[in-house]
């Protein structure tokens, strides 16, 4: 019973990590329907940013995030303007182009770091809080809290503020949104920028607990898509829930079945959801078609 609880807690905390990594993708793919395969690389840049800020400037990740996240957000705006915008409505080409970006980013970092893994000092990541019999990593707990806070903030922003609502309007029907005076291009730029900044933020937050290699982004991207699809496209709480589910399932699968098969779990969840209920848990049925039809 103790073990069960332990695995559950690990799973939930892992879910917090997945949720944090996916929140940016949920905004970009789930809300404005842009397929960005380089999203994991944006997380990777965040991680390297946090690392270098710590090593060179001596800044704790919880401070450097205010530098790194906007920087990654800016990169996102550039990507949207130069690569995504010309390919609006061409999802397959978006996959292609962003996969190309993935290859570029991964391999440039590979060349720069010569493949050596980096990690931020162990003292940070090793801190533990004890809740009863269960040991909980401080950083992971903090990450979970941050993920929850961001989810709440994002949900509020999307549903209560004018700007956030305009983002959703643009997904539903670009022409109608334009007719209402919304600047569609600017909205996409802003959304992509925020989604990228969130990815960078996730990366910085994860610096203490993950070893940083150029390929680390690739570890997250399909899991992130799994989370977004599972939770329901465009549903912020859905992605949060999806992250938790993926985390818990992975923890249990790793413990009871086989650690090596853990990764296959996300994909199988992902495929099962796509095939059975593409709208995801909290998404509206038919949501997977919105934004992918012919639009002007």
């Amino acid at each position, binding site marked *: 019973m103790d073990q069960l609880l332990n695995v559950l807690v690990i799973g939930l905390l892992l879910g917090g990590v997945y949720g944090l990594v996916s929140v940016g993708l949920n905004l970009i793919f789930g809300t404005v329907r842009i397929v960005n395969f380089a999203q994991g690389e944006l997380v990777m840049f965040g991680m390297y940013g946090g690392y270098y800020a710590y090593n060179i400037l001596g800044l704790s990740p919880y401070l450097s995030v205010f530098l790194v996240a906007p920087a990654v957000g800016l990169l996102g705006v550039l990507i949207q303007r130069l690569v995504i915008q010309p390919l609006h409505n061409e999802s397959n080409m*978006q996959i292609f182009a962003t996969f190309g970006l993935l290859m570029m980013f991964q391999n*440039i970092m590979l060349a720069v770091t010569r493949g050596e893994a980096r990690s931020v000092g162990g003292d940070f990541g090793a801190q533990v809080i004890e809740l009863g019999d269960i040991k909980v990593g401080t950083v992971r707990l903090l990450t979970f809290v941050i993920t929850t806070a961001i989810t709440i903030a994002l949900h509020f922003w999307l549903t209560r503020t004018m700007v956030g609502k305009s983002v959703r309007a643009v997904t539903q029907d670009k022409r109608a949104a334009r007719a209402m005076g919304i600047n569609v291009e600017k909205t996409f730029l802003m959304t992509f920028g925020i989604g990228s900044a969130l990815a960078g933020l996730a990366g910085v937050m994860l610096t203490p607990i993950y070893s940083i290699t150029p390929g680390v982004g690739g570890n997250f991207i399909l899991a992130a898509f799994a989370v977004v699809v599972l939770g329901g496209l465009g549903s912020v709480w859905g992605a949060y829930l999806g992250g938790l589910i993926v985390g818990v399932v992975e923890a249990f699968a790793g413990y009871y079945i086989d650690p090596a098969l853990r990764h*296959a779990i996300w994909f199988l969840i992902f495929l099962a959801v796509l095939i059975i209920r593409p709208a995801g848990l909290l998404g509206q049925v038919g949501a997977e078609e919105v934004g992918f039809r012919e639009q002007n």
Partner: protein
Amino acid sequence: MNKTDLAGAPGARPPVVRPEDSGLQSAGTALWRYLGLMALAALPLLLLAKDPYWLNIIAFTYLMGGLASAWNIIGGFGGQFSLGHGVFFGIGAYVTAIATARYGLSPWLVMVPAALLASLVAMLISWPTFRLKGPFFAIATMAFNEVAFVLANHFDSFTGGPRGIMIPFKAGFANMIFRERWQYAVLMFVFVALVVGITVCLRRSRLGYYLLAVREDEDAARASGINVLSVKLQGMALSAFLTAIGGTLFTMYLRFIDPPSLFTLQDVGVKFALLSLIGGVGTIAGPLLGAALIVPFENFLRAELADALPGMNLAILGLLMVLAALFMKRGVVGAVEDLVRKIRSRRGGR
């Protein structure tokens, strides 16, 4: 049931159309063009038959050309952007490696059954995924690829796991293991000639036209009596079959396979699509042309940059992908076709 005779007199056969009027290639023209293309493709092999370095590149170019052409059947003609063809490649590779290294069977014997298995798997995984819209289909195929990667690593008693399978060197035609590089190059040439030949025939067949119709507009296809799912499955089965054969050849050429060499998206699944895209998706010559442009170029990059800047060759390839997606959607062949059309319309008026 059909009583409408739209040529006029009842019972009259419609007049036979001259090829010049129809704009379609006659069978003869198609054949000549195919032979010409293959002759052109064979040229490097004939010219550089003595140079082992170039022979290796040429052999790989033919192999990748054949694999890209196989992808093109469902990705180009059918418009179904699968990025998980590595799965079929891997099935061909593993079945061949296991049969050869462990049971001493001839790869020639195993090639077709392995390819049939790949076709079967293709239809099984495509049947539920074909109804996914837009990017979801592509992402799902990538997910299948990743599952295959994990499974290949996991079931190591079967696949040798991360250590892979090595096939001992025992030269002989029956083993598909050759002493001379040029023999491999010829084998690969036969492969690409076969695949391209099949695409030429397909393009002129009912299935080929149905694939194109499905690509252009599924509703219009249904209104024309086409069973869209069935057509997609047939195209996928054929594509997977030929891809698996390429996997067999790859295995016997390198005599070593492991999960990364088969299932790394950047090098395999996505590469097939990339080569077709750069050459010209949906054209006959495009995939082979794409291979001819990219494979030697990538080799060159890897040789030059591998030491100084590891991975830069892939970074440059990535940049090429971005540029191709932005500026060269119809590939080199498409660009040439557009140019020809522009010249023709300026000359001939309408």
